[in-house]
């Protein structure tokens, strides 16, 4: 079975790398974008099964990305999980109203993130493989 594809949209390169390592160990294939514009472009290009989206981004923000995704039918159906360092009280409801499946405030517990991803994808738990060092494209 092909790996499920996850697009990580976050302007922090360290966060992208950490998520890549964690998700790859759970056998997900990852793609990356560091700003709002390329987030939408990468979603069009790779058609991921799920998007992990930061809110504070250059060239727009996470809400702009969700708005643009909603305008394209094949992108509108992709589940989005917002992972942000922004205040949950001020942003959680807004993110969910904008169409996000979940809002997680950084720092995120890995087990919680993986559980939310599995729930959004409707897949059972995967076993982690502790051997992955492909850092090239992060």
């Amino acid at each position: 079975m092909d790996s499920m594809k996850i697009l990580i949209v976050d302007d922090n390169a360290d966060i992208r790398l950490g998520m890549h390592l964690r998700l790859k160990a759970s056998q997900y294939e990852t793609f990356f974008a560091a700003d709002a514009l390329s987030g939408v472009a990468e979603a069009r290009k790779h058609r991921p099964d799920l998007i992990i989206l930061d809110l504070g981004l250059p060239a727009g923000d996470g809400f702009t990305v969700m708005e643009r995704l909603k305008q394209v039918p094949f992108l509108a159906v992709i589940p989005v999980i917002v992972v942000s360092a922004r205040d949950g009280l001020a942003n959680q409801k807004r993110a969910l109203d904008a169409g996000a499946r979940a809002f997680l405030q950084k720092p995120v517990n890995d087990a919680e993130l993986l559980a939310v991803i599995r729930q959004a994808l409707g897949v059972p738990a995967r076993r982690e493989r502790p051997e992955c060092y492909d850092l090239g494209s992060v």
Partner: protein
Amino acid sequence: MTKPTRSTSELPAYLSHELRNALACIQQFGSILVDGLAGELSGEQREFVGIMLENASKIRRVLDSTLDGTESSPEERAIRNKRVSKLET
């Protein structure tokens, strides 16, 4: 990181955001090490990373209790405080 030129009212939200991003990296890479995703650690190495992670959690709890809600409106904060006081009674 750019030097903040923010008003006093914006500073807590700025601090919360920046500290949460830094903590997210510490927690993320600490758990990657503990879980052996970057190679197996010795018992002592695992213990030391565990101490780092415990202290990162402490900082998170401080953030949650002091700076969370700083981007929200006075009305939203009032609702949260009401919920908290309800839980405490």
